[in-house]
């Protein structure tokens, strides 16, 4: 693949710039499709703050369980609430919980992995043992435990998903640090008298970033599936806030009367999860050409 296309000289300035903008996506269907799907979800979540077709909580018994129509594009639920509006507001909860949970996992897991890999010895042994045990507690199990101790809600769901995802990032960071700390440029930094923290932050972290970015995208896909499942079980986002999971929970009782309330949120979850996993796969291909198959 040539870096400078032979035809570039004949292009006008603008079209060249536009094509340059999309160059990272060329031949990378996964990345492009993932970006479009996630872009759509993020935009509708942002749009919901300034504009919604209807108030998502306004009850209209005249329009209960209506099929899709010109007034209600996706139909209405058992209270006559507009499904599209609720779906858009629900996107906020999904992204919010997913991003914070993965943020917790990335922050704590990264820190644990870096310390484990860089310091090594007994600390490494101990921290990796803890990570092993956390593997035995998937998000739903942790959420059940937390919900029983505190009150089930957005916070317990976020924390449960976050903690359960820590080992993934800890292991990733640890193995990156282990390979990188033997490299010459890191050795040089240390020889020049840089402190351990500085070596980690300035020399190792930038090189370890791309696999972490890829993993963050893939973990977001899993986190969003977990959030939806927890809300469906009543262990996540509280019922008064629309979220895709609890919309499905409410829709189940009325499925025989109207299938639409049970279809729309599910498709939204599929689109979002698919988006993050395509984005993650695409990023991996783009950042590490060797992994392409």
């Amino acid at each position, binding site marked *: 693949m040539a870096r400078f296309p032979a035809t570039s000289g004949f292009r006008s300035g603008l079209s060249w710039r536009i094509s340059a903008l999309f160059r990272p996506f060329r031949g990378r269907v996964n990345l492009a499709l993932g970006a479009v799907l996630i872009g759509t979800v993020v935009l509708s979540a942002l749009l919901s703050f300034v504009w919604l077709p209807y108030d998502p909580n306004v009850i209209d018994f005249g329009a209960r369980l209506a099929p899709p129509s010109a007034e209600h594009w996706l139909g209405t639920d058992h209270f006559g609430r507009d499904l599209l509006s609720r779906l858009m507001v629900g996107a906020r909860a999904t992204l919010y919980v997913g991003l914070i949970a993965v943020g917790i996992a990335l922050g704590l897991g990264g820190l644990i992995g870096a310390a484990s890999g860089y310091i090594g010895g007994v600390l490494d042994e101990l921290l990796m*043992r803890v990570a092993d045990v956390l593997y035995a507690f998937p998000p739903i199990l942790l959420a*059940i435990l937390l919900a029983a101790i505190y009150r089930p809600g957005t916070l317990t769901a976020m924390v449960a998903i976050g903690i359960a995802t820590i080992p993934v990032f800890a292991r990733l960071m640890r193995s990156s640090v282990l390979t990188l700390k033997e490299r010459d440029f890191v050795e040089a930094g240390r020889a020049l008298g840089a402190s351990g923290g500085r070596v980690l932050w300035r020399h190792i972290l930038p090189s370890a970033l791309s696999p972490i970015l890829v993993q963050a995208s893939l973990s977001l896909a899993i986190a969003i599936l977990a959030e939806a499942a927890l809300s469906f079980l009543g262990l996540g986002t509280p019922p008064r806030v629309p979220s895709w999971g609890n919309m499905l929970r409410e829709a189940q009782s009325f*499925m025989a009367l109207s299938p639409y309330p049970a279809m729309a949120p599910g498709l939204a979850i599929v689109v979002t999860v698919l988006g993050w996993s395509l984005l993650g796969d695409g990023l991996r291909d783009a950042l590490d050409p060797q992994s392409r198959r």
Partner: protein
Amino acid sequence: MLPYLIRRLASALISILLAAILVFAALLAIPGDPAEIILGLNASPGAAAALREQLGLNVPPVPRFLNWLGGAIRGDFGDSLNYRRPVSELLAGRLQVSIPLALGAMLIACLIALPLGTVAALRQGTWLDPVIVSFAQVGAAIPSFWLGLMFILLFSVELGWLPAGGYVPWERSPVSAIRSLILPALALGLGQAAVITRMTRASMLDVQRQDYVRTASAKGLPRRRVVLVHTLRNAMVTIVTIIGLSMAQLLVGAIVIEQVFSLPGLGRLALTAIGARDFPLLQAEVLLYASAIVALSFSVDVLYAFLDPRIRYS
């Protein structure tokens, strides 16, 4: 081999012990007096004192933990506060639903994923491979509980072929029991099939690139033999690992599916225990799941060492 086995077993047991400490410590983390929280604020002081006695809250944490752990090893988790029956008895009853559900889902997943993943790898470069890969990618993005809802919509509401939920015990009618498990197992198994398909394909491709496969083809062995004996057999080592880890996913996924189909399994038991603040039951359940996951990863490692004679652990 034996030293490896012993070391691996010890590490699995330590993991279970740490999990037990975590589960037990969770109860200590409850803000305030557990007895008052369980009974509510209007409880009489006498009832609260009796419950504290039953839960052993008057004993300091460390002896209380050892006592609980000792019971747990013998299979005695105390009495459920909600059902007023031994926890172990409740768990045993619920396993009759959860185990067949998870095994059924695993069977479905393997029947779909192993052929699809193999075909995709063998037909790399043709239209078939990207089609299978795309199906797997989309399949992995579908939440199993939503798939369950859609199955109810199609097979129960529209077609009326299978029950939309509920469960008939095995001893009353094995046919009805199986009928009530088909849709849940299908919903649970299909998502896992997507994951296993991708992994099977990847490990087949990995093995295909090995020198001994090239040698086998070069010396003129029929393709059938190269695929079945040289490639598939070696790829199975990785695939078995994946299946073992998938089983852990299925156990946990079943919690949600049981809720969709109103199946009286372990998952629903745990969810009702949260509302009832039935801590002895919850602790036992969470520890049971965590131990099962540790046990699965232990068996996978051991199996891996047995299947692949090249792997020798010092």
